[in-house]
């Protein structure tokens, strides 16, 4: 019994107990759920040391679990978000059906994720991966909304990824007769070249599905937006990072040894960048907050994939930094949307309007997340992006920089859209009685928002963990070379002082704000209906907020790009396959005589060719 057993045991046991606690009462269930997460997280962070190992023998296979700094880094994302989103979840999910089921799967997916980051061999990795997949799948379809469309899409792509991973795993086994990841990285170079590239590509496919890389991303927008927001915070924030985790391992231990190293990296990096670009464009035109954020998640994951694929030291730091930061701000954003959904009853951006005065704290955290998401200094979102650009430029991927920069700039558009549509604009009588979300929901959001600011000034606190993780992966120590506690360096020795930026910003902001707020009391708030509009005064039931065709000019400008939609090809392929399946089953035409003729024909054919296929 060590901390690994205990953490996993608590999570698994807690999951099952939570389900049964639901039969007793809702309060017991909630307590069970939250205490499971909190206790697991607390014990984990207090007790976990990087050298703990646990071994199971199952089915003739040795499953070994352990922890290293890379895993620790991702555990921070997982458990940190789990605690925050867990607290958030309690009021958010209150009164919904089947909560025992929901919380059980919630805990199971955390269990799966923790298992993944602890796995030291491929089989346990796969087992936990699948547990994570199906538990998250059950949550995606949990509210029953278009379950067969969205859920099947999600599970189909997940299974596609998982099965390509499984194929790679058995290929590894056939070559090395071991499932251990350590053996794999040691023995990778001894494999035949064709195996090396196949295994690497299969694994990349498997992880890219979870990380929603370009041709495999079509599940993501629907799945993200369909799950309850308190889970999507985890889903987009932590669960998708498992794909990143896998990609990091693959790129470090395998791709770097490939003869095709360069091409694999370039391809994946480009796919990541195109993912970022296209997903951003689609995010801009979404009219549902959840969908918008879902596409935005895909886009952000695109940056991360690019960073991982480039694989230089600084790009790895950038990718891991972006992973953490994306986990923070996107989880926060989804929580914001969840709070809005709970309080105002909808996430339709064309309906929502003017909630800023009703939900100021929610707006504050949304604003912080938005600034971090857009990568604008001085919040921490900027650190990762900066490093990503520096790495791409110093690595010679110039066009990639442009693509990513385009995605990033276009990201402002949807950031503004979501902030404006939900919180700004004219107030609506329909939302007259909307209140700020309960404290249990607001506090996690505000905590994340403040953390975004804090890490913006002192990114070193995060970079330290990333550095440890990268040292485990065989990179040299990067502190001092690429970053200090409050300074970032690029390949050419140029630097950015994050703390100075933060101080300058705050100084200027506060100074100007003081000027602006001088004689604040003399000012008077007037309703947003009181606007200068050619002397016209909107009636109470009229709302002049700009909602429809929000970025029509941009859409017109970019229309050639929108003509190709990958889901169209997938749909056509699926329809074709379905028609084909339907056609093949016509073989069973229901006539016994036909079946008999099949038998005789088969016999005759087999007799005729038997000499060729059987050797006596």
């Amino acid at each position, binding site marked *: 019994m060590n901390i690994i057993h205990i953490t996993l045991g608590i999570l698994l046991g807690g999951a099952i107990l939570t389900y049964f606690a639901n039969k007793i009462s809702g309060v017991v269930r909630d307590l069970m759920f939250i205490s499971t997460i909190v206790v697991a997280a607390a014990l984990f962070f207090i007790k976990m040391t990087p050298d703990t190992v646990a071994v199971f023998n199952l089915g003739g296979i040795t499953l070994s679990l352990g922890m290293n700094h890379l895993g620790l880094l991702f555990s921070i994302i997982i458990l940190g978000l789990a605690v925050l989103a867990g607290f958030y979840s309690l009021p958010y999910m209150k009164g919904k059906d089947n909560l025992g089921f929901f919380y059980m799967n919630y805990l199971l997916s955390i269990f799966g994720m923790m298992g993944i980051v602890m796995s030291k061999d491929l089989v346990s990795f796969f087992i936990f991966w699948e547990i994570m997949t199906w538990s998250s799948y059950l949550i995606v379809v949990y509210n029953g909304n278009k379950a067969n469309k969205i859920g099947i899409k999600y599970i189909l792509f997940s299974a596609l990824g998982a099965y390509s991973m499984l194929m790679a795993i058995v290929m590894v086994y056939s070559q090395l007769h071991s499932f251990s990841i350590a053996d794999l990285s040691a023995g990778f170079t001894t494999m035949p070249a064709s195996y090396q590239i196949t295994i690497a590509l299969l694994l990349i496919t498997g992880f890219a599905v979870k990380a929603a890389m370009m041709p495999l991303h079509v599940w993501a927008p629907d799945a993200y937006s369909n799950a309850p927001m308190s889970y999507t915070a985890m889903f987009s924030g932590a669960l998708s990072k498992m794909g990143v985790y896998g990609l990091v391992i693959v790129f470090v231990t395998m791709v770097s040894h490939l003869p095709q190293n360069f091409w694999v990296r370039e391809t994946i990096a480009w796919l990541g960048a195109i993912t970022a670009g296209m997903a951003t464009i689609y995010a801009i035109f979404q009219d549902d907050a959840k969908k918008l954020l879902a596409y935005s998640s895909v886009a952000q994951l695109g940056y991360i994939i690019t960073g991982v694929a480039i694989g230089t030291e600084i790009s790895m730091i950038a990718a891991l930094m972006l992973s953490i930061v994306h986990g923070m701000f996107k989880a926060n954003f989804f929580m914001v949307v969840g709070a809005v959904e709970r309080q105002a009853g909808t996430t339709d951006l064309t309906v929502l309007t003017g909630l800023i005065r009703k939900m100021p704290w929610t707006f504050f955290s949304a604003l912080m997340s938005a600034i971090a998401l857009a990568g604008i200094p001085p919040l921490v979102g900027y650190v990762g992006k900066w490093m990503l650009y520096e790495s791409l430029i110093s690595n010679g991927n110039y066009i990639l920089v442009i693509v990513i920069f385009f995605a990033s700039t276009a990201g402002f558009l949807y950031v503004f859209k979501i902030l404006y549509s939900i919180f700004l604009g004219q107030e609506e009588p329909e939302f007259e009685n909307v209140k700020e979300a309960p404290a249990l929901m607001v506090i996690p959001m505000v905590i994340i928002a403040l953390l975004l600011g804090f890490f913006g000034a002192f990114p070193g606190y995060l970079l330290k963990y990333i550095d440890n993780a990268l040292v485990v992966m065989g990179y040299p120590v990067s502190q001092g070379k690429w970053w200090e506690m409050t300074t970032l360096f690029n390949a050419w020795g140029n630097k950015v002082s994050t703390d100075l930026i933060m101080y300058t910003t705050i100084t200027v902001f506060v100074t100007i704000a003081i000027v602006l707020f001088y004689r604040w009391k003399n000012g*008077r708030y*007037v309703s947003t209906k*009181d606007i*200068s509009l*050619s*002397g*016209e*005064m909107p*009636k109470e039931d009229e709302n002049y907020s700009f909602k429809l065709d929000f970025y029509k000019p941009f859409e017109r400008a970019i229309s050639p790009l929108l003509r190709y939609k990958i889901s169209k090809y997938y749909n056509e392929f699926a329809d074709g396959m379905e028609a084909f399946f339907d056609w093949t089953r016509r073989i069973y035409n229901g006539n016994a005589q036909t079946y008999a003729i099949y038998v005789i024909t088969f016999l005759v054919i087999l007799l005729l060719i038997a000499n060729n296929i059987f050797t006596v």
Partner: protein
Amino acid sequence: MINDKNSQKIVDIIQNFARKHSLFVLAYGTGCGAIEIPPTMTSRYDAERFGIRGAATPRQADVLLITGYLTTKTVKRVIRVYEQMQDPKYVIGFGSCTINGGMYWDSYNTIKVLDRYLPVDIYINGCMPRPEAVIEGFIKLQKKIMEGRAEGAKHYKENLEWYRANQKKVLGPTTPHIQEYNW
């Protein structure tokens, strides 16, 4: 210091100077007089050399230029625009129609005397006034501002009830949207 009388005077002088030389005009082009505004602003007469420039919204404007007759329908808007403007603000009545109704003196639905509804600082007479006259009017207004006599807004505030009563009288039951005026 700011409450000190002398320094207040200096501040007033500076402020009035600035206000005088920077008149953002919101032209309310209701009547035929609007046609005289473009020549006033463009190359021929170039009002901008006096610091007069157009403003697009009442929030930014200093001068409300009523170019011609106002009907009961438009006066509602004009009042609203006027009240949306920020202090200090001035009204210029433009053309005979704003003074006494002009050629619409017996029309059933035009406003005859603008001053009953809005505090007009300067009238520019003529039907319609030429751009020269308009510029003349602006210069008069500038003088008034410099001397600190352009206090229509203050007058409006002080006699709000009277104005409101007049407005109500002419607008009748169609006045529900006029906001409370308390700034």
